[in-house]
């Protein structure tokens, strides 16, 4: 875009531009080379989703299957539930994680207490645990016989213990909470480092003008954070049809009673293909998820480019 305008420059200026650009291209080269090797070389493998794979003929020689491999994603009664769950959870995650991550990042950047480092390290820790370990910890709180919530809270209060893994009502909240708990430390880092990069003179000037803390946050920090927020959200939108398998499969302990609120596209595919082991069907699921994400990102990016060209992804 910027380049297009410069296209009409005089030859001398164009030459100067090229001279400046060459070192930049060299800088970009290792990264682009890696993307080529890691992402673009296997990319043609996407056609696997449209093939009737047979090892004797190889991926490219196998007969075409049309859209047969995609059928199972749409033609069943579960299609609606899994799509709804995937989208709703992702929207909830995007919004809630954003609010908390920005909030925590702002607080962390502003407080002066010595415990600051401790806070920051500690809240990152849950992110480092694998989903299975998280599921054990959740189980420690929710199990019917030995769980803390039943034994240490509900029973002493004289309330009926709850069979958590058979009651689907609380699970949307539990999953959102676990997701937030696990990701908050990680998610806030990026905002925190961005805030720390801001020019402190803005704040000093504002303080001299008598701006309150809240005014500083809402008038300086948030507007400056806007491009980062938009970018992160755009990227999250691209993954809206994906779900964290561990969160939706391990954490609810794969309990059948909870499926209507925990079954997402990824868990559905996993359960269905566990025995079938069909690589073309799983490839189809991947293509479906990518395609929807791609369309949504393009649309969202277009909107952003109209409103705020600097924040757009491309």
């Amino acid at each position: 875009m910027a380049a297009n305008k410069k296209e009409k420059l005089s030859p001398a200026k164009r030459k100067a531009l090229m001279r400046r650009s060459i070192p930049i291209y060299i800088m970009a080269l290792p990264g682009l080379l890696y993307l080529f090797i890691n992402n673009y070389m296997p990319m043609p493998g996407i056609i696997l989703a449209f093939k009737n794979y047979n090892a004797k003929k190889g991926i490219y020689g196998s007969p075409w299957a049309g859209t047969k491999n995609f059928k199972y994603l749409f033609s069943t009664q579960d299609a609606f539930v899994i799509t709804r769950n995937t989208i709703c959870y992702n929207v909830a995650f995007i919004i809630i994680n954003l609010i908390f991550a920005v909030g925590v990042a702002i607080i962390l950047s502003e407080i002066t207490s010595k415990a600051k480092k401790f806070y920051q390290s500690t809240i990152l820790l849950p992110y480092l645990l694998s989903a299975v370990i998280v599921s054990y910890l959740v189980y420690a709180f929710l199990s019917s016989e030995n769980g803390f919530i039943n034994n240490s809270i509900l029973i002493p209060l004289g309330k009926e213990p709850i069979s958590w893994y058979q009651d689907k009502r609380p699970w949307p909240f539990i999953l959102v909470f676990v997701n937030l708990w696990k990701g908050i430390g990680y998610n806030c880092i990026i905002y925190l480092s961005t805030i720390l990069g801001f020019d402190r003179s803005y704040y000093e000037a504002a303080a001299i003008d008598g701006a309150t803390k809240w005014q500083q946050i809402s008038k300086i920090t948030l507007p400056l954070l806007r491009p980062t927020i938009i970018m992160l959200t755009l990227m999250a939108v691209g993954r809206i049809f994906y779900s964290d398998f561990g969160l939706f499969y391990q954490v609810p302990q794969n309990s059948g009673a909870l499926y209507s609120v925990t079954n997402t596209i990824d868990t559905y595919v996993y359960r269905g293909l566990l025995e079938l082991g069909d690589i073309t069907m799983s490839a189809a699921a991947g293509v479906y998820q990518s395609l929807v994400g791609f369309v949504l990102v393009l649309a969202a990016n277009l909107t952003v480019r109209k409103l705020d060209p600097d924040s757009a992804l491309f």
Partner: protein
Amino acid sequence: MQKMGQEKRFQIFGNIVMCIITACAIIPLILLVISSFTDNDTLIRNGYSFFPEKWSTYAYEYIFTSGDSVVHAYMISFVLTAVGTCCGLVITTLLAYALSKKFLPGRGLITFLVVFTMLFNGGLVPTYINYTTVFNLKNTFLALLVPGLLMNAFNVMMMKSYFVTGVPDEILEAAYIDGATEFQAFFRIALPLSKPIIATIGLFIGIAYWNDWMNGYIYLTKRTDLYSIQNLLNRMIQNIQFLQQNSSTISNASVGLASIPSVSVRMAMAVVGVLPIVIIYPFVQNNFVKGITLGGVKG
């Protein structure tokens, strides 16, 4: 005076909020540590508890004395994380900086190509075939290092956005006019101003390497001596899961299940896996602080 009070109120409020969040994060982790020190039979009988009936260090003894050397796996993890983070940071930073140059012809297209990799991928089988047959990475250390982790579009875009907002063009242009080359401008001006984001992305890459088990799982079938700590942990957990799911086809699954160390060992492995990051992270944080002071100077 009123401003001081307001500042104080904010500090109190901020600390309270952070205390609550920190408590939420740390309580389950304390439970994790306690259960790793609980007697295994007690865990099975009574479930997880903050005040176990019987303590035991068996889990750690098992981990540090069993066939697969945990110490060796630690070394692999450390080397992998260090090398991976350095290489990853270099290529990520360079590409991100290039993309932040508004004057660069073809910038839009390159950015699109980068973002596109975030949305589409060839899938596991083609990626595997690519790395094993074209690059012969199977059963080598490079198989842990290269596939998937070295650089990703997300980090590039984050960094690019920081370069755009955090490193003002005017300073770089000024340097350029003063006769600095693009490389000099990058190293002397852009990099020092970007310490917070470099520390952040470095942390992201480092965590990704430290936590990864997928590459070892897929690409190391013979060289189990190259297993990282997460490979060991995940192998154990996944084996247990496999047996539970397949006990109908494998009638002898119970034999297998009984031979795999159970609850307390899994917990201890998780502790062992997280510990180094707990130790290293505070040092990384120092870079954020440095970033602040530099940021102050530049204005």
